[in-house]
């Protein structure tokens, strides 16, 4: 059994300390990030555990997970490229960009490359409407924004990430 409490006792303590005891539920998001730090997804057991930790229902936890594209209840690649396809970005060519990106990686939106490195997802507004096309990159415990993207800039990023992954395998 690898519960969150066993794995990250210090982190949990630190997160809970940030909020007043009667508003423990504010810790839902930081704890969800903690839960998906290693595997990139939140397991049902972790949902249960967070719910009992914060004395809220599991339904509420999954509601938060469902609302944000940042949290994942299914496995994906090591890196998730989440491309905004809302109106402003669409007007700036996000749909074409997304299509090209998918074609470049040889996958459909929502799928993961066979090497397990990349998942492409179309998501709603990322709050950078003047800088579309935009995507956020989730992976290695980080979230990074990439704004005003073209296929070329994205390809370069993918290459860097590939090299980073390859570098780890053969030090």
């Amino acid at each position, binding site marked *: 059994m690898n519960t969150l409490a066993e794995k990250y006792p210090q982190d949990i303590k630190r997160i809970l300390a940030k909020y007043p005891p009667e508003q423990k539920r504010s810790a839902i998001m930081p704890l969800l990030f903690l839960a998906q730090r290693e595997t990139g997804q939140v397991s049902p057991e972790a949902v249960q555990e967070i719910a009992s930790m914060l004395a809220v229902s599991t*339904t*509420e936890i*999954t509601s938060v997970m*469902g*609302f944000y594209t940042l949290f994942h209840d299914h496995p994906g690649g090591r890196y998730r490229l989440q491309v905004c396809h809302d109106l402003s970005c669409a007007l700036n060519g996000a749909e074409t960009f997304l299509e090209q990106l998918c074609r470049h990686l040889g996958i459909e939106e929502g799928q993961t490359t066979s090497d397990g490195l990349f998942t492409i997802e179309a998501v*709603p507004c990322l709050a950078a409407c003047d800088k579309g096309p935009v995507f956020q990159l989730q992976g290695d415990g980080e979230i990074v924004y990439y704004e005003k993207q073209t296929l070329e800039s994205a390809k370069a990023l993918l290459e860097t990430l590939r090299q980073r992954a390859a570098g780890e395998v053969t030090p």
Partner: protein
Amino acid sequence: MPKLVNLTINHTRVTVPEGTLIVDAAKEAGINIPVFCYHPKMEPVGMCRMCLVDVARPVIDRATGQPVLEADGAPKLSFGPKLETACTTPVSEGMLVVEDSPKVTAARKDILEFLLTSHPLDCPICDKGGECPLQNLTLGYGPTESRFDFADKLHHAKRVPLGELIFLDRERCIQCGRCVRFQEKIAGDPVIGFYQRGRKLEIQTQTQPGFDSIFSGNTSDICPVGALTTADFRFGARPWEMEAHPSICAQCAVGCNIVFNTKREARSEGGMAIKRVMPRQNEAVNEIWLCDKGRFGYHYLQSGERLTRPMIRQNGELVPVSWETATDTIVERLKTGRSGLTVLAGGRLANEDLFNLKRLADAEHGKTLFYTHMGGGDLTGQVGLAPGSNLATLGKGDAVLVVASDLHEEAPIWWLRLKQAAARGASLVVLNPRATRLDDFAAISQRYHYGRVMDALAALFAGEAGQVLSQAANLVIFFGSEGLGVDGSQAVAQACANLLIRTGHTGRPNNGLVGVWSEPNAQGAWELGYRPAKNLTAELAEAHVTLVAGADPAGDDPALAETLQQSEFLVVADLFMTETAKRANVVLPALPYSEREGSFTSGERRVQRFTAALPPREKAHTEAMIAARVAARLGLKIEESLPVVFEKLAAETPAFTGLSFDRLAETHPQKPLLSREDLYYSGTAYENTAGLGCTLALTGSPAEAEPVTPELPAPVENALLAVPITRLYDRSSTLVHSSSILGQRMIGAEVWLNPQDAAERGLSAGAEIEIHLKSANWPVKVVINADVPAGAALLPRSVGIPAFELAALEI
């Protein structure tokens, strides 16, 4: 009094209290602003945009702070740049609201066009069709054609069981969030929620069993589309085919106002059948809500197992006979001289039945006994709630004490009302042996050991809580029977009554003692003079002719079964062939309350009338009629007609003085205003046109008395303390059958143990074991619950194990 605000809506001038929302102000003026997400019982969220209106406010001169005037002296008005949501905008002085302009009409049309882009339009097979806000508002305000391509409609899952009671149709959902908000804010069970966003949004539940809330059925009422439907009514009937019969829920002592929707159908061999139970508005009782037991537990009323013919015992066998023969048999017996009719009646009988049976018993030099597991009703008759009481008006400065009762399980709607009272600022004090769901809202929550309730009450009254209770402007005390028998609960009631009398909390509205009875008319039985026997076994053993009505003592207690088996002459009137009926000399089929009229007195002492929803199907009679028929053969005059019986009852019973069926049928306008004509406003609950009922007057002058505390059972080594508790989904006197839709939630014979007690005995959850209680063994299933105090073994009532008060139990 809140400040009043004047405004104009369209051309109508309206005066409403400050803080009123435009949508509600319009409703008062008879102007219906269409809404989907707004509900008058919940905080507005402004999600659906259906209620957009044009709002103008007086222009104020910034320099002088005075209103700017037009040339004609009228205040100058300025419209906002955009339409505003009537559901989130409070009224203000001098405001002009326009809801019939072309701009507003166009907005409504657009909102509906959007809502319908992916709505499946499967109205012909939708349960909501005919009483659907979306359907009605589309007809009223929507576009006749959509500019969207029908083939582009998004399709979602259509049969998603959220639990075994409620189905979700994802395509129909318009994402108004009423159900989610109801569960979180009103029911206090946030067990359903939104999942995902935008077009992907769906209602989800993660609990086991799914949608685990005892108020789940209400979400189907307030859902403005056919997205949430009940498993019970799904595809059962079209709303316009059904008749609506006002009635009262008989599942507990709260007395929720309901409507039985009935329909003639082939499945019932061309007869009428109840298709569903719907709430009927009574803001002093259940508002517009029902618990799931009340909504889904009615099937027993039309069960095929009901008794259909009178029967008498001949050569040891019960054989069907005519009513004349059955009546003759009883009358002959009564005439034999060894007179003395002992009536043992349950709190399921209507006031009229109890009254007539008492008259018969009195005429026959007999006695009337009340079959109950709980005492204290003589006190609720003296220091109970007075006319004018309404739990919805309890708030700041008031206090409520709950003793020995798990209200969430025993009387869900009372739980809901006290939760709300606490939210309004009333001080809630809870004194229970274990944690209950009321603790979350309690200002003070204390525990005691089973058997020590009297000491705990004394300590509570002497402490800080005592201060809170004594100094409260109004004080209501609810007492129950957790771990208590008749004598124990009588003692608790006396201690509570003493406090009420001592602190001056009697005889006025919103003050008094309320018994958490299990039956719909237990309070009525007490008011009519029925009292539990000091020693029921002895009474039954001595009785010459015993008439048991609306009770099954033999089914509850093998010892009583033994006694009844030896009865000199036993007559049983019931709906079913109960264990008691099996031992009878004469069995009489009674009429269920859905097939007759009558009245019940709720725990809050409100007398409420019910009407016949169905024609009497079987050859059954009311208990009142049975008494009248027997009396007639004995040469006595007892009225048969129920309204006349009630008049007679009112004339002879001081608390009922001045009441009649007509008085009980009186109504007055209730807030929120609701009607079936505009069900988009508050859902499909019925408006109350059949009567709000009347609270009984308080008679006599109550005096304090020393409570008589019953002795505790002698401690037995290694034994646990058996504790009777009342659970919502038990079988109780309410006759819910395990085959009904609630079957999955019904409890069987089970024992609740503390984890440590279970571990010490090597028991795991779900284990089938035998317990030793009252020198007999009983098979039960083990339930492990951390809230059970150490050393206690909780036994639900009415599952066939004779746990009536604390007793030693061995495993």
